[in-house]
């Protein structure tokens, strides 16, 4: 038996290192999450960018922003909350709760892995989007897109956290996420494209998807930084904070 004096809680760095390694392994083995988060955004990039008539309506920067936003939504609304709900149901968290690590490290590790995935997806989509549409981005554009991607990932992870905080089963999470996904995508994208008029476009600018599309467009140099982008930035920050609070406040580690 180990000397009792040596049995102490681990340092946060040791615990986080173990959690990050495990969470990264889990994510890399989850083909569905990788497909939703990386492969489908790339597919959207190519599908929406093809066709002579459509090219007139959809600006290349808008298409790239849409593809990245889709990837962020898939990761934040499906990948993260579904994994959390499933592990909560099966008792993974129940087991972790009786170890000597604070449970916030478990959340931080999972969110960090999702953020890295989001950044990788953004880099891939931006790179392929540039090639596809013959666009060249400067270093500032790359950095701005990464910054907006981080903000977008924070928004959708916060919404995902709220969903898993307010529900108790993975079935409920799945249902909520599907409805939210469709709603946010339709309102944000169609509205911010201007196809339904200026009033709807203004309203859409305040939605998570609409706000991000303005920010991505500016980050890629498609438009200047103006009031639309300020609204997008403020709205995104508010969404991240409000939904993050709701998700943490009502979250339960066990449902038994």
């Amino acid at each position: 038996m180990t000397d009792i004096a040596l049995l102490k809680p681990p340092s946060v760095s040791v615990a986080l290192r173990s959690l990050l390694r495990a969470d990264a392994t889990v994510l890399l083995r989850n083909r569905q999450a990788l497909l939703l988060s990386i492969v489908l955004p790339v597919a959207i990039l190519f599908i929406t960018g093809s066709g002579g008539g459509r090219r007139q309506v959809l600006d290349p920067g808008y298409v790239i922003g849409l593809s990245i936003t889709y990837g962020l939504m898939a990761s934040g609304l499906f990948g993260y909350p579904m994994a959390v709900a499933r592990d909560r149901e099966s008792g993974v968290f129940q087991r972790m709760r009786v170890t000597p690590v604070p449970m916030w490290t478990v959340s931080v590790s999972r969110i960090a892995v999702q953020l890295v995935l989001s950044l990788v997806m953004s880099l891939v989509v931006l790179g392929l989007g540039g090639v596809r549409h013959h666009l060249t981005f400067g270093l500032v554009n790359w950095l701005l897109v990464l910054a907006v991607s981080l903000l977008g990932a924070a928004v959708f992870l916060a919404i995902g956290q709220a969903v898993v905080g307010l529900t108790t089963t993975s079935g409920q999470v799945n249902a909520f996420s599907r409805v939210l996904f469709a709603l946010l995508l339709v309102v944000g994208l169609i509205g911010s494209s201007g196809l339904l008029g200026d009033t709807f476009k203004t309203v859409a600018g305040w939605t998570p998807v609409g706000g991000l599309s303005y920010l991505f467009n500016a980050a890629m140099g498609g438009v200047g930084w103006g009031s639309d982008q300020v609204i997008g930035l403020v709205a995104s920050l508010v969404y991240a904070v409000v939904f993050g609070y709701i998700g943490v406040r009502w979250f339960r580690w066990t449902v038994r």
Partner: protein
Amino acid sequence: MAEQVSAPILEVEGLVVRYGTRTAVDGLSLAVRRGEIFGLLGPNGAGKTSTLSAVEGLLRPAAGGVRVVGRDAALEPLAVRALIGVQLQASSFQAELTLTEILRLYAGLYGLELPAGELSARLHRAGLDDEAGKRYKQTSGGQQQRFSLLVAMLHDPPLLLLDEPTSGLDPQARRQLWAQIERARGEGGSILLTTHSMEEASAVCDRVAIIDHGTLVALGTPAELVEQHRADPRVLRAAHGDVTLEDVFIGLTGDEIRD
């Protein structure tokens, strides 16, 4: 020094646990000695899980307290969890990880950096060499229980909490697990286990406590309890032939079904 050596590893004193207006544990006191296998018996809803949760520092008692190696579980939950190993009946591990990867993860959560050879050696000792590269869900019920116990013992804790460790196992797997528990005790550990199996309590436990409605009903060695309650009319009504620990349990807690 002599006092310190003989001091209980776990002390539960006047523990009261409430959920809203419902009292789950009502003034429970007991102690687990060093090197002892202690059984906590009770029907469903008797307060066993709440007592374990208080020991694990997962809830704050309404009154009384729990001390593990002298440390207050409510005030220092992380320090107490570093001193205990826990096997939960209804818990699991990440479905995408292999047994070796899970072991490495939990080693890190207990602050241990175990080399690959040490992880393999531990799996070998639990008879899980061939399953090292398998995922948790791909293993049998008995292997899952053995692995779960292995994870609980990873940091060689002085106190093991086992929640119905042999539930759902066949007799062979149950015997193997009993042997694993005995080995843990042989290496200096103390064990607090809950079980619904009176056969298990009689075979494995040095002492048992029977609790019901959150209070202590009886405490002693299995043989002492049988002896003390042999003439109790409630126990005699439950007995079919020689009085057993199960007869004592039924006699003291009643024969109505609890959910």
